[in-house]
């Protein structure tokens, strides 16, 4: 890739929720802004913009990652999933999303997209997490409404349901 100049916009292409997408970005554009402003995918939320709060967490190449700590140009060629990709079809929630609803694991919902993306990735590689594992893992997210207890309950419930009937998280 040649040197991309600071004051021009450059084509960035990646796979988003199974679909090839492309749009233009200046080198300094954060992936959060690229997703929201250039691609119109506003499910990914922007909180602290320096990697602390976890609201913008998405999945990049199979791993949970902060979209605000990634440049759009770094993501060129990557495979990305966001909260828009969780529901199996319109009008139906994923097992994890459904568990969040049942357990009232969200109130204002600002942190929820990031937490869902983290847990979705985690539960695929950790089928039977303990509450301690989940607390440790969710340490990377801030929620100011729920006190975390219903989030843990939802995650444990979703893990159990996925063990019993292993469909996609």
């Amino acid at each position, binding site marked *: 890739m040649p040197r*991309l*100049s*600071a004051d021009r916009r450059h084509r960035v292409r990646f796979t988003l929720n199974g679909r090839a997408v492309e749009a233009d970005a200046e080198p*300094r554009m954060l992936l959060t802004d690229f997703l929201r402003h250039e691609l119109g995918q506003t499910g990914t939320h922007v909180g602290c913009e320096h*990697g602390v709060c976890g609201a913008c967490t998405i999945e990049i190449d199979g791993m949970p990652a902060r979209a605000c700590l*990634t440049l759009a140009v770094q993501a*060129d060629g990557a495979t990305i999933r966001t909260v828009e990709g969780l529901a199996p079809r319109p009008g139906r929630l994923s097992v994890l999303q459904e568990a969040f609803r049942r357990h009232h694991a969200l109130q204002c919902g600002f942190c929820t997209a990031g937490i869902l993306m*983290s847990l979705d990735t985690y539960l695929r590689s950790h089928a039977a997490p303990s509450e301690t594992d989940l607390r440790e893992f969710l340490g990377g*997210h801030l929620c100011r409404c729920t006190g975390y207890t219903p989030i843990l309950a939802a995650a444990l419930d979703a893990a159990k349901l996925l063990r019993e009937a292993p469909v996609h998280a």
Partner: protein
Amino acid sequence: MKPSRFDYQRAETLADVHAALAENGNDARVIAGGQTLLPMLSMRLARPKLLVDIMHLPELRKIDAGRNAIRIGAGVRQAELLAWPELARHQPLLAAALPWVGHAQTRSRGTICGSVAHADPSAEIPLVMLALGGTIELSSRRKRRSVPAAEFFTGMMSTARAPDEMIEAVSVPVARANTGTAFQEFGRRHGDFAIVACAASVSRDSISIAVGGVADRPERRDFPVLDGGALDDALDAFAWQLDAREDLHATAPYRRELVRRMGRAAIEEARRCLA
């Protein structure tokens, strides 16, 4: 909070990186995982004119386990090293410290060498590099050189790296038999930078303690085998010798007291591993 403007270049060869650094000096920054660089860019604490992305160089993405040392390339992410099945056997201190680095959601992108390059005085990886007597491999158009960790960290976020040099890899010795190690950290929340972190290493004839978060860089002291009050006295002397920082998280006396208590606890834990 948006970064100021910079050019971006995805390096295709090591020569690309060396050329970019040689031609742009301090105006260029290497970006690997970006987990510490991006916040600095967004807060405009760093305003480079050029970012050189090194994550597409396969030669930097390798963990090489030799008989005496583990060499970790500049493209190896923290999560990749943590997931390496040989890590706990080859270097248990590194395996114990890595879960304290940021969060799972930042370890997935952040690299080992990036943390070393950034040299935050509270960061775990520079502390472990010093505790283990690791080396940092630097390369540039001019030359290649290896710098011991004890000489690499020169102060608050400053290192012995010249502006035209990149960190190509770091190496840590493979754990020796008859050595026990332990890592302990105190912070307000898990995932925060440490207020104080301690790495202890104990053998039959020596004790080594390294602390992070206290002074402007990680610091290490080696003692002969001591016990009881003599060990407390040695740790007390070490704590007083540290130029402890004071900030809104903790006072300098508080940090020194943590060195005394946690230093002792880490040494005892390392001893139990040895037994």
